[in-house]
């Protein structure tokens, strides 16, 4: 494996113990980890029944690392094996699976993916809103027109779901069961109420958490947080078990350590307690999952500072042009030294993360020259339009290059997509962009094909459904090949008698109307399609998840697609358990919702779903999801004070004007944290301020992630007026650009 000196040092010198590697964007973290795993194996440091355990953040990183290690082992003439690559969740699952009884579940426990998870949360919140409708409505202003009322109810309902989700997430992070939360609230009520009265939002959140938990418990289901918690329980409940796993995995190599939550970190700490061999690689400056996962860069930094931990840098990066590197470094410098908020200076970015460009003879040299441009626009419309036009010009001129438009919000990303849609209409021959805002393309493709397949199974006499299924299959590149626009085949399928085509009887009445002369390839396609779909129809008596698995086994060959199909299948099994009267048609509708982005499936990142940028096509996505990816040109939009605030005053995202400026989720969260931590002397205002400082810091890191996605060109934009208000460029960006001249 070709290694830079910094990388080689880590690989050659490490022989055991705890090691923290601080790695800047593009410094080859994964590459180095894979090389280290191979090195440990090559030196015979891992016994016959043991494995090097590699933990990465995403499923696709798992495949990537596996492939690299395999290849390197083969090159060295070593036998395959001796290592395991997991995500933290699949590791937790592997632990729980071995001894579910220790974790308080039975062997047939099920894991909730994010889709069923968000569905369950919405259902729990809806239950609450119905049960306590009057109480719930009492939060809204009373003097409203019917239209206003309707709009506000819908906004309040969304916020209630968010409230429930955030309280649930935090409670699990603090390892509080619903009963614990209830007890904490009751305890506080017994005390004098002088300091802090219990917020009604915490009560509502707690009630939803309890309901949600009850729903999951009744189904034997674990969401991702429960799974981590369950793994810790299992490890803590039997020392023999923990030691056995420690022997199985004598080395632990952890990637993206800055995103590990304290609970996740605890799993690895427990596993390595005996041998202490634990390598953590991460970049605290890219910790942007805090809000979603209760992770925090502080934990990784604290690990690095421990006396028993050795630290080694990985600061050389060949990803971006010198101009981009300089900009990213200036952001780090400004944030740590000149940010107006002292707390942000300490918390946001780490000066250890200064990026060094690769030396000229490096195997992966930096792009020679880059371009940074700042573009203010009058309003959001103009920003969306102009950015879209500019990006289209770029991909038309440079079809061999990659390009992305990144937005801090899902909402503005959609405006970009609308603008691109209009332009796309003028270029029917070329696909200009990929909408990667919500459900990543692979998930949508799999869901769309499965939706059509299930729909056809639900109405096998409807030949239009078969035609739609065929189109979806061709578009996704699976099943019998054909041309989706072939009107002859379509017409022919529409006029066919389904029963004769799919289940021909021995008397052999012709399936297709007489007089249609079929080309040989057409006939082949039609009969192949008939054979395949007849098979699914025979399988359609199976339970829904089994039907979907049967379809998937025949359609998909890619690991990732199979994994997606499987998680969709189990998610739908849960759906059927919740709705015992649902039919196949309802299942098809559920799948449609996912395929068409109306229901969120995976929220974390594009790379998670196996996405790779395609040259000549614009990727539209959020800055969060762009993590781990790179493009030749990147447009960063909405780089303004709304999205990247610099202080804790003023208006914040999450505040609901109809609740007189309250942010229900935030208030409930900080109060729960205070109750659990016993920080009773803090005032509510202190707590709010603290949360906001953390938010300001995280948005700075998000900006940093955005900048470091670009290889050569970085186009930064904002609108002078946004949401009918005056707006200005984010202070951080103004400062670093000013220093750039």
């Amino acid at each position, binding site marked *: 494996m070709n290694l830079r000196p910094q990388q080689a040092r880590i690989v050659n010198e490490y022989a055991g113990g705890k090691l923290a590697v601080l790695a800047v964007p593009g410094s080859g973290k994964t590459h180095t980890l894979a090389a280290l795993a191979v090195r440990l194996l090559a030196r015979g440091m891992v016994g016959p029944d043991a494995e090097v355990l590699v933990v990465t953040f995403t499923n696709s990183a798992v495949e990537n690392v596996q492939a690299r290690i395999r290849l390197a082992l083969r090159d060295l003439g070593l036998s395959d094996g001796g290592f395991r690559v997991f995500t933290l969740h*699949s590791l937790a699952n592997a632990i729980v699976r*071995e001894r*579910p*009884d*220790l974790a*308080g*579940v*039975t*062997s047939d*426990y099920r894991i909730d993916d994010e889709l069923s998870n968000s569905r369950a949360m919405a259902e729990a919140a809806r239950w*609450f809103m119905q*049960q*306590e409708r009057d*109480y719930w409505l009492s939060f809204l202003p009373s003097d409203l027109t019917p239209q206003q009322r309707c709009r506000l109810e819908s906004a309040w309902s969304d916020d209630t779901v968010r409230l429930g989700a955030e309280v649930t997430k935090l409670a699990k992070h603090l390892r509080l069961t619903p009963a614990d939360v209830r007890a904490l609230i009751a305890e506080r009520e017994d005390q004098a109420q002088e300091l802090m009265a219990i917020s009604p939002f915490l*009560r*509502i959140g*707690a009630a*939803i958490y*309890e*309901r949600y938990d*009850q729903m*999951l418990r*009744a*189904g*034997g*289901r674990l969401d991702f947080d429960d799974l981590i918690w369950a793994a810790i*329980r299992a490890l*803590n409940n*039997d020392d*023999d*078990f923990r030691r*056995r796993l420690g022997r199985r995995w004598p080395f632990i190599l952890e990637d993206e350590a800055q995103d590990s939550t304290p609970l996740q970190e605890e799993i690895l700490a427990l596993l390595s307690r005996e041998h202490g061999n634990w390598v953590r690689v991460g970049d605290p400056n890219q910790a942007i999952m805090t809000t979603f996962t209760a992770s925090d860069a502080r934990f990784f930094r604290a690990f690095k500072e421990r006396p028993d931990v050795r630290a080694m840098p990985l600061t050389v990066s060949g990803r971006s042009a010198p101009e981009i590197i300089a900009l990213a470094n200036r952001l780090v410098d400004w944030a740590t030294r000149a940010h107006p908020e002292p707390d942000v200076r300490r918390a946001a970015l780490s000066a250890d993360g200064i990026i060094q460009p690769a030396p000229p003879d490096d195997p992966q040299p930096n792009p020679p020259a880059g371009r940074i441009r700042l573009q203010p626009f009058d309003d959001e419309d103009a920003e969306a339009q102009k950015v879209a036009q500019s990006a289209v010009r770029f991909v038309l001129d440079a079809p061999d290059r990659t390009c992305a438009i990144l937005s801090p919000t899902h909402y503005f990303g959609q405006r970009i997509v609308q603008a691109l849609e209009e332009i796309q209409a003028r270029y029917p021959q070329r696909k200009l962009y990929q909408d990667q805002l919500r459900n990543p393309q692979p998930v949508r493709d799999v869901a769309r094909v499965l939706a059509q397949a299930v729909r056809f*199974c*639900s*109405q*096998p*006499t409807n030949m239009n459904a078969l035609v739609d299924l065929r189109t979806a299959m061709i578009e996704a590149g699976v099943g019998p090949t054909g041309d989706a626009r072939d009107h002859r085949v379509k017409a022919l399928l529409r006029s066919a008698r*389904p*029963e004769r085509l*799919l*289940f021909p*009887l021995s008397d052999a009445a012709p399936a297709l109307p007489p007089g249609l002369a079929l080309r040989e390839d057409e006939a082949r396609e039609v009969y192949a399609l008939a054979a395949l779909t*007849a098979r699914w*129809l*025979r*399988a359609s*008596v*199976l*339970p829904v998840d*089994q039907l979907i*698995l*049967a379809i998937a*086994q*025949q359609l998909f060959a890619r*690991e990732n697609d*199979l*994994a997606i199909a*499987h998680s969709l299948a189990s998610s739908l099994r849960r759906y059927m358990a919740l709705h*015992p009267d649902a*039919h196949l048609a309802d299942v098809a509708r559920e799948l449609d919702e996912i395929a068409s982005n109306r229901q969120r499936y995976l929220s974390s990142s594009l790379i998670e779903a196996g996405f790779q940028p395609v040259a000549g096509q614009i990727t539209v996505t959020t800055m969060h999801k762009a993590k781990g990816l790179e493009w030749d040109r990147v447009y960063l939009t909405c780089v303004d004070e709304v999205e990247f605030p610099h202080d804790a005053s003023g208006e914040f995202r999450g505040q609901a004007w109809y609740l007189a400026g309250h942010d229900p989720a935030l208030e409930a969260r900080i109060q729960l944290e205070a109750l659990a931590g016993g920080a009773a002397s803090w005032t509510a205002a202190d707590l709010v301020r603290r949360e906001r400082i953390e938010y300001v810091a995280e948005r700075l890191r998000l900006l940093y992630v955005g900048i470091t996605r670009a290889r050569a060109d970085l186009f930064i934009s904002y609108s002078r007026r946004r949401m009918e208000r005056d707006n200005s460029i984010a202070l951080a960006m103004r400062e670093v650009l000013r220093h750039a001249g």
Partner: protein
Amino acid sequence: MSKHYLVGHPGVGKTARLTDRLIELLGSGVRPDRILILVPQESHVGRFKAALALARDAAAASREGRKARRARLSEPEIHTFFGLAQQHVSLFFPRIALRAGFADPHREPVWVNVEAAQYLLDRIVAPRIGEFEHLRMPRSRLLIQILDDLNRAATTGFPLEELADRLASAWHGAEPREQTYRAVQDIALAFRRFCLRHTLVDFSLGMELFRAHLLAADFYREYVAARYRHVLADNIEEGAPIVHDFLRLLLETSETAMLAEDAPGGFRVNLGAAPRSARSLQSACEVTPIPDPRLQPDAPDSPARFGQALMRAINERAPRLALRSSAVEKLYDGAAPARYWATMVQAVADHIGALVRSGVAAREIAVVAPVVEDVLWFELEERLRRYGVGVHAVRPSRPLHDQPLVRALVTFARLGHPKWAQPVSTSELARALALVISGLDVVRAQLIADAARRACGPGGIVALPLLAEPILWDRVGKPFHERYTALRDWLAAWAGGRQAQDAPLDLFWRELTAGPMSQPGFVLGDDPEARGVCDKLIASARAFREVFEQADLASQPIGESSQPPELSVLGLSPRPEVAERVEAGQAYVVALMQNVLAAEYAPERTPDVSEGSILLAPVYTYLTDNYRSRYQFWLNVNALNWHERFYQPLTHPYVLSREWSPGMRWTDDDEQRASRDLLARVVGGLAFRCRDKIYLAASGLTMAGQEESGMLAQALRGL
């Protein structure tokens, strides 16, 4: 000594010795009804029946008229232990009921089947569900574990009051579990009290009555001594300790006995199989180990030899032990198995195809896997069709509601009870029709259902309409017209019949399945397995109703009238809920479809594999049903569930056994040893049941796209 204990590998002829002994006994003039034959499950009855027939023929041929006549007059008793215990408990019930604590000892007891037991238990658990907050499992799982605890206490022989102490002392985790175990014990005791109050006898109480009030009683000893002079018992390693207690009594009271133990064996772990407890009977017998000719030094290489080596590799934790055998073939290349699950299934299908083409009878081939999913069955069937080979799948442990035919019968129940006002969707109807009418595919069934929907109008399909459009039947086919109409007429007659209005659901199903559905052209006319499913459902519904009536459940309100605890944080006032009266049939359907009833069965079936089909079975079913094959395909050998038992936090097969002494802890090391021991027995049990060759199949990724590498995979690395 007249008491014999045979022990040996599967396939060395132990059962043959038992049947020889039976023929010998009958030939020597012993009264047949003085002979008791105990088998581990119904499916084993066949071999002894065959031996009986043989004995009868022999007797007839030998012209010993007197004996032959007697042989016709009386029959030896062939029983499973539970069948016999149930019979005896019923027989002596009036005599033991008072002492056993029944509130009304003069009342006829009703036996509670698994579904009804779950339903009753569910009502006891419901108000206490909060006590299980830190556990995550479906309600049905919770119920199954509590029933399991009840059963284990009864078949192992410890008082229910000791349950929590036993579980708690074995537990040594960081988190406290004692409260939970107490709650389980309280609920189990409450269930027991409920049964005693309403003269209901569930499995555990039946066992308890047998153990505490029959086995120890002098009158029963005398009865048994007079009744059974000769005892034959097969596969005693599969029995729970209570079975061995009974056998011990029989060894004392009978003239002759012959017991047979399969080793390796004891696969009904979850039903309390206790091979060690069986072995304790050896002290009262003359022990005859039967050598395995396949393992003689000069015997050719065989799966049995491989099995023995693999058992050693697993037991001695020697994963790299070199295994060499010509009787085994890996269908994957060492370190790199087929990547995908589907590829593995295809490879298996191709090898089976080749075997069949080379002249091997399909039924001599078995495919086994730790779990047989619907998809596996379906995929294998599809892929083998090309070779003209069928798949005979035997699968235990399927909850009723997961069976398509059961769902079809529920659909027809709705159509036969328009007063329930539960309309049926076209796809439900299409599927139900396609399932019960032979030869009807889903597309043609859908055409019928679409027409029915049009004919029914706005209210949906609550009853089947008359469909006479010639165009429809031209497309679908004339024969299907007659069958549809027959079904439709029957349902209409039922719904309209006066006495049918109040007739119980099990009667509806019985008449439906015995009537139109058994006519030629319907699935029950052609398919004995489907018949079995129907019988199961009908029996379950009937037993459920009997319990329902015995305990007068219809008049007791369902549902808790308290506020859900989730809302107590708000401090708002509670709201009462309305209680409603339910009828047994509807309650049954609701409980069935909402998965409250997750009872799993070891179904009774004959082990014959149909002609032209291979056998597809889960590993444990293959072993406990005692199949034999020339060729075995082991699927997913990488999978973890080859060695993992089904883990449940509220019950424990080892801690609640007789080998475990109170105060001992159960650690992960114990667990590992137990897993290893069980896996070794399983692979040995399989290999000793295979004659010619074992094929090992694996894929890198499971069906779910995950990598696994379990204990079996490790042991096979040295192959």
